[in-house]
């Protein structure tokens, strides 16, 4: 009798969860398509070079923290110096690197220590010195040397030294399109009904691409096995997921690798949280909370669907697992810190939709998936399973996942068409299926490990170790 009621209860729970899961993703699909088309109508034929001639535009600081990046740092800064915008500065924050990053930058860019004044508006570790180049070609460059404190701390140091209206938080190893700032600034000056407090952009995988002088000259599909899956993952997350949330103004995350923020408002909320590894997600959630609680004005977090930032993704299994572990810990930490927002109508769409989504389908999903498998095994053992229903639901799930990813791949071809060739076409379609069998189960394992580390090993902060191969050699190997 107990087993009957127990299985009945679990059945209902799983059916409700899976049912809502499909409905939520289906609705997201519709919203993302709508947002994508809205964006096409709005920006597709716009010539962004026009913004370069504008006189009333916000100034921008590009803040790029660096830790032990000596292999790529000079190339990366050269790439940033290629950016086009009328009023911007580049602030590189050396977060107490143990290698020769700082020495390399000083030597290459002719830097000299200066007495630049700054206020400690947001907390950060002591700054040892600020450097500026005496070569006029690099007059936009500022380098901060500080004691080690983590990525969030380094970004806070950059915010303190910055004197511009907006700041672009960036991973120093990213390759940025030369018109990235103009595209990101547009929503800030384009809105008439609400205030834009931050803007996120699409990140793409740079592995195997050919790069010269800090610019991508040829886009290639990655050659590394794990990187291939991440192309699909990034396409799906940015083209469908974030676009959908952007459509209902419910975006809760702007990638830490690439996001533009209103400096004054970030200072008002206290800058980046140094105690978490998910500082990007946490900051956006805090900004949203602040806008709802304090300023109480109509606001927006914008999202640009154009691929503006290219990053090297983990190509080895170990680095990938560490990265995903860190992402999971960051998400849990943010959810727990801001649990007050969960199903709280005071926070509008965020409280009622975005935040519950993160809890239910980002944090709890790996648990439900694992529980489902264990439960299936128990039912098979007890002989209490209807094979037809089970197989049909499995087929339905697979077909739905393939459809969802195929739409993301289609939109890439329809809008930007960055990856070309018949080889890519066959590879990506094969990988969509392989991803379901290999990559997604691994994602569940990484997420469970992240939960374990967060709750039992109390591992919450620190720089993620990512071994860089350096862009200058890529694509030609």
């Amino acid at each position, binding site marked *: 009798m107990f087993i009957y009621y127990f299985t009945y209860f679990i059945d209902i729970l799983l059916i409700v969860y899976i049912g809502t899961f499909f409905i939520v993703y289906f609705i997201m699909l519709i919203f993302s398509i709508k947002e994508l088309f*809205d964006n096409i*109508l*709005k*920006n*597709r*034929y*716009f010539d962004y070079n*026009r*913004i370069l*001639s*504008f*006189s*009333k*535009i916000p100034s921008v600081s590009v803040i790029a923290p660096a830790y032990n990046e000596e292999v790529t740092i000079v190339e990366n800064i050269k790439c940033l110096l290629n950016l086009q915008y009328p009023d911007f500065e580049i602030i590189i924050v050396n977060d107490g690197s143990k290698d020769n990053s700082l020495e390399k930058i000083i030597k290459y860019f002719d830097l*000299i220590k*200066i*007495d*630049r*004044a*700054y*206020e400690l508006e947001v907390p950060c570790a002591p700054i040892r010195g600020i450097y*500026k180049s*005496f070569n006029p070609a690099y007059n936009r460059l500022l380098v901060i040397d500080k004691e080690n404190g983590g990525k969030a701390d380094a970004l806070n140091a950059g915010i303190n030294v910055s*004197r511009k209206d907006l700041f672009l938080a960036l991973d120093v190893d990213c390759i940025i399109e030369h018109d990235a700032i103009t595209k990101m600034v*547009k929503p800030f*000056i*384009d*809105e*008439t009904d609400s205030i834009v407090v931050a803007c996120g952009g699409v990140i793409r995988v740079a592995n195997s691409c050919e790069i010269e002088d800090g610019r991508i000259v040829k886009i290639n599909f990655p050659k590394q096995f794990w990187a291939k899956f991440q192309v699909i993952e990034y396409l799906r997350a940015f083209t469908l997921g974030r676009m959908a949330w952007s459509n209902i103004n419910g975006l809760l995350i702007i990638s830490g690798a690439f996001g533009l923020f209103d400096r004054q408002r970030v200072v008002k909320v206290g800058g980046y949280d140094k105690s978490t590894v998910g500082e990007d997600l946490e900051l956006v959630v805090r900004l949203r909370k602040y806008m709802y609680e304090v300023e109480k004005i109509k606001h927006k977090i914008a999202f640009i669907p154009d691929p503006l930032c290219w990053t090297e993704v983990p190509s080895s299994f170990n680095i990938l697992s560490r990265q995903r572990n860190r992402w999971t810990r960051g998400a849990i930490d943010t959810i727990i810190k801001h649990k007050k927002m969960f199903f709280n109508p005071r926070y509008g769409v965020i409280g009622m939709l975005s935040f519950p989504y993160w809890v239910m389908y980002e944090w709890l999903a790996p648990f439900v998936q694992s529980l489902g498998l264990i439960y299936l095994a128990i039912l098979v053992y007890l002989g209490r399973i209807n094979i*037809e*229903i089970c197989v*049909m*639901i499995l*087929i*339905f799930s697979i*077909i*739905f996942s*393939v*459809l969802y990813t*195929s*739409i993301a*791949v*289609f939109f890439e*071809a*329809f809008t930007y*068409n960055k990856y*070309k060739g018949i080889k890519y*076409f066959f590879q990506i*379609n094969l990988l969509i299926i392989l991803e379901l069998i290999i990559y997604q189960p691994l994602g569940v394992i990484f997420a469970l490990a992240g939960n374990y580390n967060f709750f039992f090993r109390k591992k919450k902060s620190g720089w993620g170790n990512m071994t860089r191969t350096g862009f200058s050699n890529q694509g030609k190997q």
Partner: protein
Amino acid sequence: MRRIILYFKYTIFRILTLASIVLFFFGFFKLVIKNKYLLLPDFFQLRFGLPDWFYVVQYYILLFTLAIIMIVFFTLYYSYSKTYKIKKRSRRIDVYIDIVLAMVCTEEVSERKFFNNIKTIKKNTRSEFNKSILITVTYILHYKTMGEIKRRINKLFNSLNFDKEIKTLLYSPFTKHKKLALYVISEFNLHGYEDYLLKLTKQEKRKLLHFEAMKTLIKLDSHNNLLKIIEMNVKISTFDINILLNNISNKEIPYKELIESNNNGFIILGLILIRRNNRVEFKKDIEKFIINTNLMVREETVLTLAEFADDINDFELLIYFFSESSENGKKAIVNSIIRMPDNDKRIEFLSGVIENDSLRIKLFALDALLSIDISKVIEFQKSDNIQIRKACDELLDINI
């Protein structure tokens, strides 16, 4: 006819989408519930006791599978057609650039030869695609050239007589067509489309059309068209203000109408234009905006008044509103104070700012003070306030 085809092309995608949605939501009532066994009927006839929703799942599996096949096909199609179209277009553009340049860069030819050339071009440019390429090429070359060549391109454009094509492009439902038409109208100064352009300025979704239409109207006739836009009370953003500022002719600007508008966007535009064109006579008219509820209006007012300040009353007004001003406003006030006739008062004001305001403003005030009284700056260098000392160090660092 041309326009009907364009509208058909435009709506067909929507009709297909609508049909798919109808199929998606209502199809299964007919397909699944009526003939229960949609998939593998023999297999399911062997079973019994399966719930009804099971057949709904089957229906969606079938539908999603078909959708995947279609999407994969379209992915391949779009990927290749896009690459092909880009290549074809760029090849055709190159060809037309050569033809047009050959016509306008050679020595002046006789009228007869010129019209023969036009005839040949027209004969070879019959398809819609080629016509739009030729229009694009003439527009680009006209935009990028000057002097005699520009004049000849203008003559060529007029001789080609593209009125019909431009009308089709302008009234086409596709944004890219409208955009090209707007570019051409503004570049070649073509009149007669003003009413439709005014309609386009109300576009909220297709913002590109909204500001391109405004830009075109302003280029055609700054004064009258700006008056019409003000009258229509079109919503304008900072972005639009920039577009208007870059295209407005400085002659005959309706300043009074701009600042008397009840639309903050136009007031801001008016304030910037008054400042840019140094129209000091409006100083008294704009003072009221210093207490406006809109932050940007207040900021532009302060910037303008700071620029125009010349007597003690002006400076006192600015000093009075200093603490309520934005950072940019404060910087402008500090800069203007250098011109204040009363030396003691200006030093007193700047010293107060240095002692009490944020570091960024301190730096500005110190810089201003340096140009008035260097000994005062040296005094501040020994201040107990670490922020002031830091600001002085930065100011005196020769490497910055």
